[in-house]
């Protein structure tokens, strides 16, 4: 007993030191989890943006836009784009006459449930990408991570303003549609107690090829 009292100071201070070290250990673990979650969501966002940009930059490729509008109006609901379909032509010039294949690409936004972000329930979605050749059967050709909370595609005029009913406008004046803009938001796949980021936002404006 007297050993404890003789070393009381050291015991108290030692206990405080151990508690602080444990608290810092928990804090470091939280930091690592947060960094991992941020890296995952950023990586997924960049990957999604990369292939989506590749796709959108080929809207109407090899198609005479004075004859045909290479997309249908984005299907919007509650400020989000639920479906978007566009076409491009692939031309094989090694044969005579050149062989043209019509490639139709379609994005469908499907609900994958809800998640809790900053204490509130948020609907999350996934983009399913499908393609078909020359009007054949649709084939699944990829999908996004299922942590999208917002997705929107707009067709813009030369002042970067969204156009209502762009397919009709483009049919009357093909030069009126200059750009495609895509914006999406990803939520982190999991939350820790102290999150710096709960969502990441991405936006890109792409010129429609001539």
């Amino acid at each position, binding site marked *: 007993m007297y050993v404890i009292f003789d070393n009381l100071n*050291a015991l108290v201070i030692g206990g405080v*030191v151990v508690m602080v070290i444990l*608290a810092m250990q928990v804090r470091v673990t939280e930091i690592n989890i947060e960094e991992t979650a941020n890296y995952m969501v950023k990586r997924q966002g960049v990957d999604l943006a990369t292939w989506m940009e590749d796709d959108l930059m080929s809207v109407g490729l090899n198609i005479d836009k004075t004859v045909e509008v290479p997309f249908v109006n984005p299907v919007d609901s509650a400020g989000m784009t639920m479906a978007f379909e566009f076409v491009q032509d692939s031309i094989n010039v090694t044969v005579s006459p050149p062989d043209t294949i019509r490639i139709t690409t379609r994005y469908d936004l499907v609900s994958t449930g809800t998640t809790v972000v900053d204490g509130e329930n948020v609907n999350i979605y996934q983009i399913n990408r499908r393609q078909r050749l020359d009007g054949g059967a649709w084939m699944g050709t990829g999908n996004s991570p299922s942590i999208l909370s917002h997705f929107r595609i707009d067709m813009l005029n*030369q002042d970067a303003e969204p156009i209502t009913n762009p397919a009709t406008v483009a049919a009357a004046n093909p030069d009126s549609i200059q*750009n495609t803009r895509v914006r999406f938001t990803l939520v982190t796949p999991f939350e820790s107690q102290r999150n710096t980021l709960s969502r990441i936002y991405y*936006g890109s404006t792409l010129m429609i090829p001539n």
Partner: protein
Amino acid sequence: MSQTLMALLALAVVTTFAMNVQQKHLHVQRTTIHREIQEMAASAALEAMEIIRARSFDQAVANGTTTGTPADLTLFSYNGSTDHFSTGRACQVFDTGTDVCDDVDDFHKMQTATRPFIMGEDTVLFNVDVEVSYVDASFNRFNGRTFHKQVTVQVQDAWPDGSRAPFLMVPITLSRVVSYDF
């Protein structure tokens, strides 16, 4: 006495350790936010660039006085070696005034525009500045008329209520060359 000294040393070490951990967390937070602001700034820069690229190459093209031949070079605007084009326009498309900026060089040193990046319920604002100059075929600045103009867009986050300094110490810069097609 030695016991007390060792206890004080242990406290000092653990306090330093705790401070380092907190500093690291602050650094991670700041880096994360900085990276997000950079992404948004890049998106704002790209959008501004697309607005500018949609314009005519030169006022002569917008006016319809060009002939689609190399002789059009003499029709292009040129204000001298310091600023190749006139400055200070308040371009309507960027909501800074009523000037109709209908060709690429109208945006040279225009009045600083503020573009929003809308993220759900919040909006981050960015200041946009533009410089345009003639370049040669090697993309070097050329003090004279050429068929190529380099458009440089600089974007930095803006907090109009003065609540904070910009996150981006150095503006994001996006540069593209537009060429006259004939």
